[in-house]
């Protein structure tokens, strides 16, 4: 370390104080984690809170964001943003994508991304192992990035007031700060993540600590941002105004300028979108540590909001640094720290350092815990179990071994990170290293997304896709990173492998015009997706693949076959409990099975029956501890299983889907039933109404019949009882009797007529008729009535009208009815009835107008009801049967016509009926 300034010792930024502050901070984190774990054991979770869930997702923001974004912005301007825009957009899809991942993982006790992929493709140990290897190799540069950032920020801050740390790249390992930082982080991670073995691999304390760290790094970064923007400068406008004055800096505010393109912008957005889903640590906090699906709701917007806030000041800080340190050779990745240092803000610098430490520890802890779980469950355990020796010691408690494997894995992973840092760390800026890791985890996308939405994906397809994608990634990004740092010959990048032009790792097969990352992303995903689909399609899924595919693809459906439906065989309950006890510890196993017994109303664990349900329960307990693939293998070792053929699996799945369709059918039927009930109710209502109408009708009919009968009977009795009645009177009485009888006959006929028409039993004689002729005949038939009452009848019939189809007698009945009504209401002597036949609007109309009293408006519709007559029935004597108009209307309507009345009181009334000229086929309307 070389000091370039005057070199008075700072009161704050001394290494004991810096180390002390870091230690206090880490102790605080540990206390929070300890408290979180304790609360979890008491069943009062502190992380069952959507805000804490969203904050824990902010573990996405590492030192890459904290220091690296500014470095990136100093070179590419707004080019640092796609790394945060991609996740923002993907969170919008979280509503179903993340939900499906969470639900699947919970249902299958999945504890890592390797477990997820292995489980999906038939619980394949080989696949789980491959994913683990890719994840570890892919993430190692990312861990190196954290080590580099913490180490260089430490070297910087203790070198205060110098603004450049001189790190000798060939320092001996034991003298290298970075090495010690790696070891400290390993120890800290072990304390955090592997104090005890949890059956579901959840770490509540760790999540609480990570959420706290997210707050600290946001506050620290915000403090620097405010200090630079409003302390060193006069707000956003001022920073940008000064930067824009410098032509070189002005270029930084453009998305596409120099070697930056919209293609790079897009591919980085896409890459970051995949990373937020498939980075092992994001999978850990988002899926494995998820307490409740409902928390996703807030995280969908709160996490992107966090990203926005932490990026708000990146560009001002970068521009400020570039302007302040122009020509001094200060690394842009350190501006966040060097700007406060240059301004002698020592406490702020210390806060920044702690914030950076926060960003690094959060990432390293979660990432290495996730990776160590994978290494243990999907890499080491399968190998150990394969060595059979362990499987035979049935009484041995393996839970301690599991913890030791995980701790070992954590140390190894951090040392690998350190190794990468030594080999290639200096060649790249922070973001450059991180993007190499992002491109590696993007390789999981086809197997993951394909596995969740496509039943046809097979284990072989996933293996081929991952291998192909990984190989292309290693060739186009990882190896060149070694080459750049001189560990491999530089000619590998400049001339291609063996000097073959087409194999140049950054211009594979001659593809130029893309930056390194876009180039790698295109070729690796093309190879990955291509191999995944092509190899998957080479054969049908096996029984195991098909049954797992259903569990994953149908994860969001309400009814899906449970795992136990797909198991057949026999097992011994005691052996199962012992097996689980070996990995979880006997006490934990006993508790777990006691809970199972209680749920199934079985008094004692000893009475448990080893049916498919119990076997499945045991397997899922084991899966939480050693991964689904190993759990499958272990259960198979103690149970006698009858393997199901693909056909049988398909049958079970079909049954389940039939069950599903039955339940849908049932739902549909019950809806139909409801509808039918409603209709029945309405029909019943209508029937009641009709019944009431019938009663009314019967009452009216009997009333109408009784009136003439009464008078007939009265006059007949007089004639019988009093033989001395004068002859004149007798004749009068007899004529009354005769006329009343006629009226009675007419009434009965009309009632029958009405009933026939209404029931549709009337006989119709349909032929071509001449309406004019009908009107004339009717007039002739009623002429006597007119003469009797001395009423004038005028006919005004248009000539040359076409014939209609209709029933001659029925239509005559209508006209006669209207005429006799008219004459009835026309005043005697001065009465005048005018009949017109004319053509209007495609129909023929007949109007019969009288100059009688007219009909009140409120009666104009009523008179077409049965037994209802115009006028007040209480005061005026009815002069008809009350059935003429209803029958007439029925007849006219039978021939698709209309019958209505137009009248003004005192102005007479016009009854008009119309018959259509076309389509007047009565049969159509019966």
């Amino acid at each position: 370390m070389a000091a370039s300034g005057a070199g008075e010792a700072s009161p704050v930024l001394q290494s004991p104080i810096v180390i002390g502050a870091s230690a206090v901070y880490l102790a605080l984190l540990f206390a929070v984690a300890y408290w979180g774990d304790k609360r979890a054991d008491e069943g009062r979770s502190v992380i069952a809170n959507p805000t804490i869930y969203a904050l824990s997702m902010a573990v996405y923001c590492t030192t890459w964001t904290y220091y690296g974004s500014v470095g990136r912005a100093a070179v590419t301007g707004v080019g640092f943003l796609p790394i945060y825009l991609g996740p923002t957009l993907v969170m919008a899809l979280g509503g179903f994508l993340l939900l499906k991942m969470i639900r699947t993982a919970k249902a299958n006790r999945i504890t890592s991304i390797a477990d997820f992929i292995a489980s999906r493709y038939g619980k394949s140990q080989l696949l789980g192992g491959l994913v683990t290897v890719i994840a570890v190799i892919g993430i190692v540069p990312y861990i190196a990035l954290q080590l580099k950032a913490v180490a260089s920020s430490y070297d910087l801050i203790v070198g205060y007031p110098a603004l450049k740390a001189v790190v000798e790249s060939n320092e001996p390992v034991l003298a290298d700060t970075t090495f010690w930082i790696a070891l400290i982080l390993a120890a800290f991670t072990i304390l955090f993540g592997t104090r005890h073995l949890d059956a579901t691999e959840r770490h509540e304390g760790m999540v609480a600590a990570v959420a706290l760290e997210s707050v600290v790094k946001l506050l620290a970064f915000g403090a620097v941002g405010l200090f630079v923007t409003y302390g060193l400068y006069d707000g956003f406008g001022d920073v940008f105004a000064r930067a824009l004055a410098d032509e070189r800096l002005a270029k930084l505010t453009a998305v596409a300028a120099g070697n930056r393109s919209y293609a790079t912008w897009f591919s980085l957005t896409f890459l970051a979108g995949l990373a937020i889903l498939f980075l092992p640590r994001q999978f850990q906090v988002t899926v494995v540590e998820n307490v409740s699906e409902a928390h996703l709701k807030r995280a969908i917007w709160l996490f992107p909001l966090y990203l926005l806030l932490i990026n708000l000041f990146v560009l001002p800080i970068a521009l400020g640094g570039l302007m302040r340190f122009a020509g001094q050779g200060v690394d842009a990745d350190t501006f966040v720290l060097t700007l406060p240092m240059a301004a002698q803000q020592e406490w702020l610098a210390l806060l920044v350092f702690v914030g950076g430490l926060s960003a690094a520890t959060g990432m390293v802890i979660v990432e290495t815990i996730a990776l160590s779980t994978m290494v243990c469950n999907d890499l080491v355990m399968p190998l150990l179990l394969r060595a059979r020796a362990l499987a035979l010691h049935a009484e041995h408690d393996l839970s301690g071994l599991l913890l030791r494997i995980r701790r070992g894995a954590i140390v190894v992973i951090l040392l690998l990170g350190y190794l990468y840092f030594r080999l290639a760390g200096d060649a790249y800026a922070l973001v450059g290293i991180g993007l190499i890791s992002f491109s590696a985890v993007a390789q999981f996308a086809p197997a993951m997304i394909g596995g969740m939405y496509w039943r046809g994906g097979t284990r072989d397809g996933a293996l081929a896709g991952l291998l192909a994608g990984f190989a292309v990634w290693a060739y186009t990004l990882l190896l060149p990173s070694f080459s750049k740092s001189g560990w491999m010959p530089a000619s590998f990048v400049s001339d291609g492998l063996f000097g073959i032009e087409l194999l140049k790792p950054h211009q594979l097969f001659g593809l130029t015009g893309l930056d390194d990352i876009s180039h790698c992303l295109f070729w690796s995903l093309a190879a990955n997706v291509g191999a995944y689909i092509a190899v998957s399609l080479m054969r049908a899924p096996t029984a195991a693949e098909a049954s797992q595919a259903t569990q994953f693809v149908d994860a969001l459906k309400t009814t899906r076959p449970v795992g136990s439906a797909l198991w057949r065989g026999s097992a011994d309950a005691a052996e199962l409990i012992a097996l689980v006890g070996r990995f979880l510890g006997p006490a934990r196993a006993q508790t777990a099975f006691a809970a199972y017994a209680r749920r199934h109303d079985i008094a004692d664990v000893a009475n448990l029956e080893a049916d498919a349900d119990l076997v499945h329960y045991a397997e899922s307990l084991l899966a939480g501890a050693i991964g689904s693939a190993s759990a499958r293998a272990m259960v198979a070792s103690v149970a006698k299983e009858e393997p199901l053929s693909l056909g049988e699996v398909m049958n079970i799945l079909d049954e389940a889907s039939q069950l599903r369709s039955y339940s849908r059918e049932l739902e549909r039927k019950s809806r139909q039933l409801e509808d039918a009930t409603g209709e029945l109710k309405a029909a019943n209502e209508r029937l009641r109404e009709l019944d009431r109408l019938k009663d009314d009708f019967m009452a009216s009919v009997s009333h109408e019949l009784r009136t003439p009968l009464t008078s007939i009977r009265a006059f007949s009795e007089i004639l019988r009882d009093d033989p001395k009645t004068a002859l004149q009177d007798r004749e009068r009485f007899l004529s009354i009797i005769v006329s009343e009888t006629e009226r009675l006959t007419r009434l009965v006929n009309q009632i029958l007529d009405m009933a026939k028409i209404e029931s549709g039993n009337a006989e119709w004689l349909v032929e071509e008729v001449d309406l004019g002729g009908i009107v004339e005949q009717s007039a002739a038939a009623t002429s006597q009535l007119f003469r009797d009452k001395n009423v004038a009848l005028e006919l005004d019939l248009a000539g040359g009208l076409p014939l209609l189809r209709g029933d001659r007698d029925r239509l005559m009945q209508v006209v006669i009815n209207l005429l006799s009504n008219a004459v009835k209401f026309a005043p005697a002597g001065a009465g005048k009835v005018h009949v017109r036949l004319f053509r209007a609007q495609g129909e023929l109309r007949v109007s019969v107008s009288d100059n009688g009293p007219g009909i009140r408006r409120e009666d104009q519709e009523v008179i077409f009801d049965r037994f209802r007559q115009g006028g007040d029935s209480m005061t005026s004597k009815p002069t008809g049967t009350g059935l003429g108009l209803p029958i007439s209307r029925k007849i006219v309507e039978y021939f698709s016509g209309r019958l209505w009345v137009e009248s003004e009181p005192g102005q007479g009334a016009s009854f008009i009926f119309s018959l259509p000229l076309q389509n007047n086929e009565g049969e159509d309307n019966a």
Partner: protein
Amino acid sequence: MQRTMLTVQRLVAVFLAGFVLFNYPILALFDRAATLLGVPLVFVYLFAVWALVIAAMAWVVEHPERHDGRERSGGG
């Protein structure tokens, strides 16, 4: 899930809108040497759209019942 289908569709719509607004060619419209209140136009544009996308997501997920007919009808 059935009941939240509308929410999911809205989120997908936000995703599509954000995807279009954050990329070429719309992005190119704002990617020029202009400033708004002294701040480069593209910077203002990106952060404004970002904030709008977040606001839209928050609105969609936090108020589903008010706009979701199925939920109001008692969740058939």
